């Protein structure tokens, strides 16, 4: 390979440049060009030939046709006296097309044409490619670049550079034009002090030349030692940082005002704490209140000192303790509890319904409680009116049934009378039997109706759901009408469940009415019971364990998903005005949840619906079987029973019955006569009293009776238990209740049980 000494010109070249640069001399007079080995290699010439010199025309021939004339013009320019020669052009070699750059500087001497000029040739193919890519990157990345030779009045700039300053796109801008965009007081973009460092970065505010819009630019660059004598060059880039600056300023502002805002927020919170009508409390994991807000005083009448330090549960009504206990004693402390209705005792003894939301936070729970007493009362009223509505729906069918039954009774009695009149008492027996059967059916029906329409609070006890379904069968059949087939499929081994029996009846009736309404053209209603064991997560709302499942399926219209999504909403109904309150399913839902169970609905449009009630399994003893009417009535052993009944039709019947059963019966028509007997020395083992007495009612009478005979058992008879809505509230120890009408056997059983429980003598005279 040819070394620098091989150069035909004899010029000594720095050895390290020989590889990178091709050296050449252009002889203008003879139109020949000589070059070194690198020059030859770049142009695809034979090195020997290049050293010897080739005709300029041969060189032009190797140049890409599009660039050929441009090169010729540049060479001609030098011949004419131009001092700077710089041209990029393409050459075609065996290895393909290559971009090269030829550069030279010629000193012009007045009145003398240059004879030759020498320069360098470099391969810029790669550089071109990079520049192209850089161009794309620059406009995409919003980066403008510049190159500036120290002290020169102008700067070579990229298109993006001009755009960033809002200047017309140009290759060259005067330094002053660029710096004029800078805000007064900020360092100049070009030629500032900072540009004197080997590498620099600064931030400058500008005003765009076109719009006058203020922007922040970052300028970053590097100074390079002069490649030729012109002076050091600064190469750099600018980019817009307005958004970042704005964010930074905002952040600084935020930091500066943080304290202020925290204080404001704290004040806000304090205000909320002290002025809120809702109860706020902080409760430790032990359930002890750590803090309470003034709403405790306003709503419940407690001073701070009476609340803090006490267990939250101290304020909760006994019935709601289990639910309230879950608020923090539950294992899953990380889960917030919402929408928990609990009765709280006010200082004056009144009860307030409070809806609690509890959020665990670190070592404590934050509890917020809203007074929902009024809402609860409304709900209660609504529930009641809903029941009445259901009764109303039934009345048409029931009146018909009732008339049938009355016909059976009256007709039967009429026949008896005739048989007796005609002296055939033996034939009368048949009709008496028929009349009693009709009367019993009528009694059962009214009993159901009354039980249903009576206000019931949840009174969970062990219930045999199968028995309950069977006992309702009659009522259901009548409700459903003839076009609907009722199928009952009961699991003979069904567990007992703990629910309020009345509510369950009500729920079943509601479901049956819904099913009936969904089958206007008739169909089949299936009531099914079965035991289910739920694994964890099987039914998202339910704890794993044993449940009694009661399902009601129909072959009716079914529901669209849209309707399905809303059926549990109170007042949601698709039925015409006046026909549905939309409370049926929400009551069923409320009942199921309150009982620790759940409801699910499966429905297909046009095919039917299945509603499933999941009820918790009762783990104690099986519920006491209903006394069988067929069992022989237990007899008395001469005990004395005081009967208080104002109705002259009922009183003799009861008295006769008692005497038949072997008791001594004393009968009075009012409380006063009864008290007279009780205050006397007469033996009384049991008092049977109507509740609805004129003057003192049965309950008040019992109260006074206990004053003189504290252990006297009392059995109330009631036709309608208005005011006795909660059995346990109404009945004291040693008191029982029996609903009218009652079968003789039922009365006998009750009395026997009560008298037997009473050890002889203690209930005697005072």
């Amino acid at each position, binding site marked *: 390979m040819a070394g620098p000494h091989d150069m035909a010109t004899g010029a000594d070249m720095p050895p390290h440049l020989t590889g990178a640069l091709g050296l050449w001399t252009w002889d203008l007079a003879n139109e020949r060009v000589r070059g070194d080995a690198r020059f030859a290699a770049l142009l695809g010439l034979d090195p020997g030939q290049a050293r010897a010199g080739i005709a300029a025309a041969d060189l032009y021939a190797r140049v890409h046709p599009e660039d050929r*004339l441009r090169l010729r013009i540049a060479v001609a*320019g030098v011949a004419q006296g*131009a001092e700077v020669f710089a041209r990029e052009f393409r050459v075609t070699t065996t290895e393909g097309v290559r971009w090269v750059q030829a550069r030279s500087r010629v000193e012009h001497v*007045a009145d003398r044409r240059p004879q030759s000029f020498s320069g360098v040739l470099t391969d810029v193919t790669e550089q071109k490619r990079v520049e192209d890519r850089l161009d794309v990157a620059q406009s995409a990345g919003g980066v403008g670049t510049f190159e500036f*030779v120290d*002290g*020169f*009045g102008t700067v070579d700039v990229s298109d993006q550079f001009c755009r960033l300053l809002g200047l*017309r796109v140009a290759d060259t801008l005067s330094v*002053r034009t660029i710096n004029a965009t800078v805000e007064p007081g900020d360092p100049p973009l070009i030629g500032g002090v900072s540009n004197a460092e080997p590498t620099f970065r600064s931030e400058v505010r500008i005003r765009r030349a076109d719009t006058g819009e203020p922007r922040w630019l970052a300028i970053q660059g590097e100074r390079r030692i002069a490649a030729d004598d012109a002076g050091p060059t600064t190469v750099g880039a600018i980019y817009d940082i307005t958004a970042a600056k704005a964010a930074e300023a905002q952040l600084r502002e935020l930091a500066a005002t943080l304290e202020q805002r925290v204080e404001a927020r704290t004040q806000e919170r304090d205000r909320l704490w002290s002025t809120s009508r809702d109860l706020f409390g902080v409760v430790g994991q032990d359930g002890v209140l750590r803090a309470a807000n003034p709403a405790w005083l306003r709503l419940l009448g407690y001073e701070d000192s009476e609340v803090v330090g006490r267990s939250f549960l101290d304020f909760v009504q006994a019935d709601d303790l289990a639910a309230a206990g879950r608020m923090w004693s539950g294992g899953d402390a990380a889960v917030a509890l919402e929408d928990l209705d609990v009765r709280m005792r006010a200082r004056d003894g009144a009860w307030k319904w409070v809806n609690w939301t509890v959020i665990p936070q670190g070592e404590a729970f934050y509890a917020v409680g809203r007074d929902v007493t009024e809402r609860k009362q409304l709900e209660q009223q609504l529930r009641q009116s809903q029941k009445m509505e259901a009764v109303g729906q039934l009345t048409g069918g029931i009146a018909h049934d009732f008339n049938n039954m009355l016909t059976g009774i009256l007709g039967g009695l009429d026949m008896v009378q005739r048989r007796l009149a005609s002296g055939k008492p033996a034939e009368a027996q048949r009709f008496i039997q028929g009349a009693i059967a009709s009367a019993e059916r009528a009694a059962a029906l009214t009993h159901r109706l009354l039980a249903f329409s009576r206000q019931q609070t949840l009174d969970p006890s062990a219930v045999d759901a199968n028995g309950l379904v069977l006992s309702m069968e009659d009522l259901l059949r009548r409700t459903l009408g003839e076009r609907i087939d009722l199928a009952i499929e009961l699991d003979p081994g069904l567990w007992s469940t703990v629910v309020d029996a009345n509510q369950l009846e009500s729920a079943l009736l509601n479901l049956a009415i819904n099913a009936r309404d969904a089958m206007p053209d008739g169909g089949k209603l299936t009531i099914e019971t079965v035991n289910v064991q739920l694994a964890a997560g099987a039914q998202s709302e339910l704890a794993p364990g044993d449940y009694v499942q009661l399902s009601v399926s129909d072959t009716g219209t079914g529901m669209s998903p849209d309707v399905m999504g809303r059926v549990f909403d109170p007042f949601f109904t698709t039925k015409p005005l006046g026909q549905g309150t939309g409370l049926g399913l929400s009551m069923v839902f409320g009942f199921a949840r309150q009982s620790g169970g759940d409801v699910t609905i499966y429905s297909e449009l046009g095919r039917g619906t299945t509603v499933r009630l999941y009820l918790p399994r009762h783990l104690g003893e099986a519920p006491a079987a209903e006394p069988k009417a067929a069992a022989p009535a237990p007899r008395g052993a001469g005990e004395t029973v005081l009967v208080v009944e104002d109705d002259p039709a009922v009183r003799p019947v009861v008295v006769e019955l008692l005497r038949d059963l072997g008791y001594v019966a004393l009968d009075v028509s009012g409380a006063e006569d009864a008290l007279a007997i009780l205050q006397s020395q007469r033996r009384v083992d049991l008092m049977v009293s109507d509740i609805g007495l004129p003057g003192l009612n049965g309950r008040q009478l019992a109260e006074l009776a206990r004053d003189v005979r504290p252990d006297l058992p009392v059995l109330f008879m009631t036709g309608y238990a208005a005011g006795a809505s909660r059995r346990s509230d109404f009945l004291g120890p040693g008191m029982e209740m029996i609903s009218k009408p009652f079968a003789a056997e039922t009365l006998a059983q009750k009395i026997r049980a009560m008298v037997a429980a009473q050890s002889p003598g203690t209930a005697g005279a005072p």
Partner: protein
Amino acid sequence: MTEGRIYLSELEVDALTELVNICVSRAAASLRQMVGRQVFLSVPSVEVVGRADAVNLMAERETGGLVAVRQDFDGAFAGRALLIFPEANSMALVQAVTGGELSDADMREFEDEALAETGNVVLNNCLATMANMLQRPLEMSLPGVMRGEGARLFQLDEAATADGVVLFLYINFAISERDIRGYIAVLMDLSSLDSLKTLIAEFIARVVGPSAAAEV
């Protein structure tokens, strides 16, 4: 130059650049003679823009704090040549051209005169070369010195036809061993693009020979 391509082909821009290159080089040579020092030139940058755009372009470049020697010309094409440097540099330039023979006070007194004379030599040379190269006579005004904020260095003749183009070029120069840097700007109002193209074609043919020009 992207903008120029709308009006002129790449080759024509090249040729124009080369033309200016030649002219300024000649001017630099005379400056070199005057100051007795090396004068370096940058690669010229040429922009050819429409007249409407040019007004904006000029406005952008209108900045103060400069001293300029200006010489207007008229003929086949009209225009203005400017020798521009920062105001702070002007005394150094005066000192350079007067060879340090004058006292500071004298220099201040003759500053404008010396600048005008320098500009005259440099720009005259440049423009004369241009007239020569294009083979068209040019009439030249007397050089004037403009300075300070608001000097409308690049003001255009408003009356010129609106469909013309404006040629705008820069060449930076640096005088070695003296801290003098500045640039030469030439502004040409080429009211008829066709006549410019003709001039360029003629120039190309002349410098490379008619046969080579026809090759393209």
